[in-house]
């Protein structure tokens, strides 16, 4: 399946774009997606943490992604 990701902050710099489209296995979990991304972009491994948001909620590692999910990488937040 095709997944579309939004990127912010340091992840946007690592990937070099604010959006990323990628092909994932038809059943892909959040943890699996992160492993796929860390392989493609090894600098993601250097981050303190990197969460995944699906439809504006933090997603658990075992969440199964769907093609129409609004997915975003959430590196360590630092608002305030």
């Amino acid at each position, binding site marked *: 399946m095709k997944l579309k990701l939004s990127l*912010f902050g*340091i992840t946007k710099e690592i990937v070099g774009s604010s959006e990323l489209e990628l092909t994932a296995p038809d059943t892909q979990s959040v943890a699996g997606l992160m492993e796929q991304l860390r392989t493609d972009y090894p600098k993601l491994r250097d981050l303190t943490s990197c969460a995944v948001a699906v439809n504006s909620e933090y997603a658990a590692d075992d969440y199964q992604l769907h093609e129409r999910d609004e997915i975003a990488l959430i*590196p360590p*937040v*630092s608002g305030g």
Partner: protein
Amino acid sequence: MIINCTSATKLRLFRPLVEAKKPPSLILAAYFSLLMLIELTDQPIDVAATIAAVEAEGAGAVNTFIGTVRNQSTGRPVVRLHYEAYDAMAVHQMRLVAKQAQEKWPMLQKIAIVHRKGTLEIGYVAVVVAVSTPHRAESFAACQFIIDTLKKVVPIWKKEEFEDGQVWVAAHP
């Protein structure tokens, strides 16, 4: 000692928290209800309006936190900050933080959370949290809970600009 000072002197003595000339507010994403004002903007935050938004007849206390841009980070001079946000999720998560506060302190009258993004110079206001409660103790606790939780969960990122480079805060261990 009594110092008589004109408003011009006061301006020199105290750095104004809000820039003098304020363009019309542009709200990027927001949630409003009778009890809650949640806003993300790329314009200067109207601090007085944010505080006024939590006025309530049942409130004996209004507590406000104003987060401003500091001129240094662990001793290293900071030139300015650049804030970035995942707009829709940021407002959604700010609303969840406010709802958690309402559950913890059911006596909360009103809550306002306004965060700014974009490039902010030293002294500029980055975030304002205002709450109103019947008595003061809960207003301090709720206000602190909201800003502390916001800093942990709301998808907003700041990049510190130094004389010799830029760093995304907290990105690396």
